[in-house]
Structures are given as C-alpha cells and as structure tokens.
C-alpha cells in the first residue's frame, strides 16, 4: 500500500494539454512529485538524472515515441524496473499488444477520468493510501 505522495511520477507527452490533465489527475490522487517531459528523449534524460518510480507516457510523440521510451527504459538496468503506463489516443489493440510485449505495466486510453487513472495506477502499485 504505497502512499501516492511517495511515488515520483514522470508525465511524458508532447501536448501541454494532456500533461496538465494527467498532472491535475495525479494531484487529485495525492501525488506530490510530478515531473513532465515533452518527448521520449527528454523523458529518458530525466529518468537518468533523477529517481522516477512511475512513468505515464503518451504513445505518439516526435523524436522518440512511447514505445521507444519503454524499450529504452526496459533495456537500461538502473531504470528498468520503473513502472510504465502507456497513454494511447485511441483504442488500438495492436499497439497495446506491442507495449505488453515490451513490458508495459498498464495502459490508459484518452480521454480518461480520474477514476480510471486511479484504477490503472492501483493495478500496478496496489491500492493507494
């Protein structure tokens, strides 16, 4: 039963709107440490420079997309155990299937409610305090 406030989260999306929405959802759930990155490369750079326990990443982004980021995370031992939730813009089964193959911990379809966000995070971490 992790407390939300103890989980450091990184939100990766090229859209400010989505980053803000995820951030506001996370804040509602009691998250305190929330970082943002505008694409996969920037996300990876941040993960290598500060401890991150949960990544919520969009799929379709310039430079390095969500799947690329997931693969990079899983391939780099120091960060490979980081929880990873993929944001998908539309119900794309193939995409989620591939993300599962690369070791995603869960997925979240846009648009999402705070309740769904909570449900998905809890599916990964267990019930939040």
């Amino acid at each position: 039963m992790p407390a939300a406030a103890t989980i450091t989260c990184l939100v990766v999306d090229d859209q400010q709107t989505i980053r803000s929405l995820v951030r506001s959802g996370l804040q509602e759930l009691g998250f305190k440490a929330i970082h943002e990155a505008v694409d996969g490369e920037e996300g990876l750079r941040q993960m290598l420079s500060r401890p991150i326990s949960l990544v919520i990443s969009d799929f379709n982004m310039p430079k390095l997309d969500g799947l690329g980021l997931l693969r990079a995370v899983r391939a780099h031992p120091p960060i490979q155990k980081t929880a990873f939730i993929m944001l998908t813009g539309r119900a794309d089964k193939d995409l989620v299937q591939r993300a599962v193959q690369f070791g995603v911990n869960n997925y979240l379809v846009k648009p999402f409610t705070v309740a769904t966000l909570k449900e998905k995070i809890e599916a990964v971490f267990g019930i939040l305090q």
Partner: protein
Amino acid sequence: MDPLAAIRETFFQECEEQLAELESGLLAMEAGDADSETINAVFRAVHSIKGGAGAFSLEALVRFAHVFETSLDEMRSGRLASSDGVVKTLLRAADVLADHVRAAHDGSSIDEAHTAELAEELKALGPEGGDTSESEEDWGDFSFQPLSAAAPAAPATAGWRVRFKPRADLYAKANEAALLLRELGRLGETEVALDDSGLPDLADLDPEAAYLAWTVTLTGDADETAVREVFEFVDGDCELEVEPIVADGGSAGAPADLGEPEIPTTEPDGNLDIGVLLARVQAAAAPQAPPEVPSGAPAPAAAATLAEPSPQDGQGPSRKPEAGATIRVDLERVDRLIDLVGELVINQAMLSQRVMEAGFARASGVAMGLDELEQLTREIQDSVMAIRAQPVKSVFQRMPRLVREVAAMTGKPVRLVTEGEGTEVDKTVIERLADPLTHMIRNAIDHGLESPEKREAAGKPAEGVVRLTAAHRSGRIVIEVADDGGGINRERVKSIAAERGLIAADAALSDEEIDNLIFMPGFSTASTVSDISGRGVGMDVVKRSIQALGGRIAIASRPGKGSTFTMSLPLTLAVLDGMVVSVQGQTLVAPITAIVETLLPKAGDVHSLGGHARVIAIRDSYTPLIDVGMALGYRTTPLDATQGVALLIEGEGGARAALLVDAIQGQRQVVIKSLEANYRQVPGVAAATILGDGRVALILDIDTIVAVSRGADSLRAEKRLAATG
C-alpha cells in the same frame, strides 16, 4: 480561473499551433516535398487535437477529427498514396477542422452540411471497411508486466550499498558470513570493506560473540529483492541495511549486459537502436553523431563506438535546435517596460543636452561616458521593442486558406507563394495587418488574375500566382502583395473615375496617377459587386488602415504582367519619425509619413479666398493652405505665408493640403506618449512627446487639422474625433 478552465485555454492555444503545423505539413505534401516525418507530424497534429477535444467532451470536434485521423493513418501506413486530389481534400478537411476548433472555443456555429460532405470525402479515401475503431471491451486480457515488490519506491539505481553485521546467533546457527558475501558477489561486481572497529582487546574477546561488520558495494542490475534474498535465511540474526546507489546522469556506463534477455528482440522497431539512444541521451550536453550501426550489432558495441567521435561523420547530423525556452508575460508588463525605456531615452537625451550646455568638451570623459550611455540606451530600446515583435507568420499563415476559398469561388487556379514569414514586427501592427492583407489578396485573385482561358490565350500558365512577401528595409517592414495577372486596366479605371466624378473626363493623368485612382474613396472597378471583393470596402479603406499604422502603400502595375502593392510600415508604434517644427514659439511634431514635400511659399503662389482661407499653387494645382498656428489657436492673425514653411501633406483618402508653420527644426525619432492617458483628447493633436531639452511637444493629428480647417463639415470632423477616441 479554475484549473480545468485554464487547461482548456491551453488546449485551444495548442490547437492553433497544431492547426498551423497541419496546414504547413499538408502544403509541403502538396508541393511534393514531404517525407514520412511530415506525414507523421500531420497525423500527430490531428491526433492531438482529437485527444485533447475528447478530454473536454467536444463531441463534434472529436467526431470530425476521428474521420480525418483515420484517412491520415491510411496515408501514414502507405495504404493511401498522396496525390494532388487527396491532398486537396485533406487541406479542405483541415479548414473544416479549424472551423470546428473555433466553434468549440467561441461557440460559433458550424456548417453541418459542409462538415458532412467532407467527412464523406474523407471516408471515401479509405480504409475499405470504413471506421476501424474498436471499443476497448473486446480486447480480452493483456498480461501486463507485474511490478516487482520493491519497485514502487525503487529509484533508478546503479547498484546497492549493503551493510551487513551478523549477530552471535547467526554463527550459532552454523551460518557463515563469508558464504553470504560470496553469494552477494554473484549478483554483480562487489567491493567488500571490513569494519573491525567493534573488535575488543584480545583479553576481552568473547569467542562466541560477533564483532565484525561488512559494507559491500554492489554494482550491477540486481534489484533490491535479489539482494535481500541472499540474507533470507539469516533474517533476524543480523543487522542489514540495503541502500541504493543512485545513478548519476553523467556516468556513461551502460553496463556490459545491456542486451536484456527479457526484452523481445524478434520485432525490431523501426531503426531505433536503444544503445545508441541511451548513450546519446546520457551525453546530452555534447551534440552527438549516432554512428551507423548494423541493425544486428549488439547494443554494447554501439555504445562503445559512440564513446569516440566517429571519423566518417564529420559534421554530425543536422539535429534541430531545441525549441527555445519561452515564458509567457503579460502584455501590460511589457508595455510598462517599453514606456519606462521611453522615459530613459528622453532622460538620456536631456542629460546629454545639459552636459553640452555646461560647456564640457566632446572629448571630455563626461561627454564620452554619455556617448556610451546613449549607445546602451538605444540598444536597450531596440531589445525591449523586440519583445513586442513577432514574426508576420501568424498573419501570413491565415492566407493559404483564404486563397483556397477565393480560388474555389472564382474558379481560378491560384498558387500562393509566401516569403519572409520570419520577418518581425510589432504585435499590434501584425494584428491590424490581417484585414488589409485579406482584402488585398482577395482583390489580387478576383480582379488581378485573369480567367484560366484568358491566361492561356496570353501564353501564361493557367495557374495564377499571388506572391506575399515581407522584408525589413531601412528600419521599416515592407510587405508586398503581387499577382501575375493582367495588370491594371488603365482605360477602364480612368473612365470609371470620370463616371464617378472623381476626375474631369479630359484630365491628363500619368499612368501612376491613374493607378492611384483605385485608392480614392468610392472607387470600385467591379461592375457587379462580387461576393468576394465587394464587401463594402475598397482600396481606400485598405490605404486608410495602413496609414493609421503610420504606413504607406504604393502600387506598381505593368499591363499583361501583373500588379504589385507595396506597403511600408513602421516596426513599432511606440516611436515615430517626426518632423519637428515651430509655430508661434511652440514646438510641434508632424509625422513624416504624411509629409510629401516641404516648400517655401512665394508671395505670388498664395491666394486668399476671403476670410482666412488661402490656397497655394503648387505645380498648377491649388492646394488649401492651413496655418497650423491658427488651427490650434496659437494666434489669431494668420502668418504671412512667405515668412514660413509649407509642409505638403497627404491625409486620409488622398486629400492634400499644405500646412504652414514658422520654421523647421529638424527630423528625429520621437517616443509617443498618449495625451489621452495623461490629460485628455485634444482636437488636432494625436499624442505628445518629450524632446531632448525636456520640453513637451505635441504630435499633430494631420487628418483632423485638415478636416477642421477646410471647414468641410466641422461637425462631422468632431464626430470622427469622438469615434477615434
């Protein structure tokens, strides 16, 4: 503003950026120079708009974006080839999408029929089965990667520092510290340090007690669970501390076992090479050249190659510079800063003048220091003005859509060429440019370009070209709208002007004068008021709005070759090029843009019309002569014209007049101070400024002076004064 409303605003701001990206991408595709990244960016733009719209339940927008996105996905995956027709449909769809975004933002209405029509056209592009979106329910279950127990709190680690201190019980239960340390060694590289500080003197030593402790630095990819597992059987019989060693971003040590067995490598995803990527991201400070690595090569090799600059790749790839970091600042704050810098400029000028008056030599330290101050002040002023400057792109990028619409309405194929979109000018100037530009481009297509048949008959390509360019020229921005049409039909313009009573039927006019007739109020060449250009505004309105910005407009036309409208505008509205004049001991400033020429009246040229009204003969035409001193009430008897200087000015609607002043002091840039904000509106005065000697000088409102003095209809002039206030 509540947070969600703020995010909603962010969404609409982002939409504008994405729409611009969408359009420029589609235009690149139309021009045939689009690579896969362009198509991807176009797809992403629509996709992002849809994603955000979904979050705010903007149903209509989501629906249309979805259909649009589906077609773009077809193109992205290569199932739909990019052809001229397809891109044209996509461009029109982009326009509809923009309408939807705006409708969602400001609640304006949507042309449902047009939306439905385009949605059908998009669906016709494929895919075959129509909408392929599937609902989440029929997915079945995925087996997501479970999170290892320690992971939630686990920071990124480069390894572990394990402090292990056995208690006596551990040994009593026949466990061996050495075996445990060896076990730990299997998880990675270890460095073991013995802490024997607890060891007593030999005399005090209890052979069955435990005195030793070890600190093990373990590097590698082992997780915390694995580390603790080693000590599973001695749990409770020892003191154990396991703490992570946090990886620092700079250590480029991708450990040797990068190729993780649990990562499926059966499906190479594009040309992504994780090793290269990691190394590049880690060494983000230095621009890196990802070397060519055979796709089958193991990642560590790639990382190793990267450690040294690859010799075959001298300049490295052209990595786009990171988008500049920006901050949003209230316009008010910027304007306040501009105001203050204006004060600074004035202050500095006053100081210089005082120093000169005090008799310091030019070469003296004080004077030289002041020179430097002047330079600095000017630089500060330029930099501050630059904050308000924006590229004209924001108004230019609205034009392609306009061209498409007008082209469709007139049935004339048109290509719009834009140049110099990055040219910067004051934000207010940009905002006020949109209307005149829209009108001029409409005119260029509607009146300037000939029908395709006529063009072909004249040996020109059927597709007309409208060129929109911007450039900086001698401290001003010059914007041109040029078409390659038939040029101005001078015969027709002249006969219409005569018909409307604007000129005498037998007037002898130069080509240039005829061309300029189209700027006269009430002139319209279209025999039938068309839907496109005839919206009740003519070129006279365009000219007036340009002049209101302190700009000038000129036309050049060549029969059979086309017409070019050239607008020249100041880069900022905060300063003005002024002619400083004196009238009855007062110092006044006349905007230079309005002055056509200056002349010294000769007695024979000035004729009285009774009362105080006078005219001056300038090259065979009579122009009203207005005594500024009288107009502003500085004197009651008119100045003898031969004692003063006449400024020939051109005001609103091309009306000319000569302003009589006592003397010209010089020409300089002045900082505009609003008189209304500081005092109140005064007829005949547009604003004020402070001169170098500290005196306040009024800036003349030429149009009002001319209108009032002509007595044309002083009441109307007053009304206009009220309206402009």
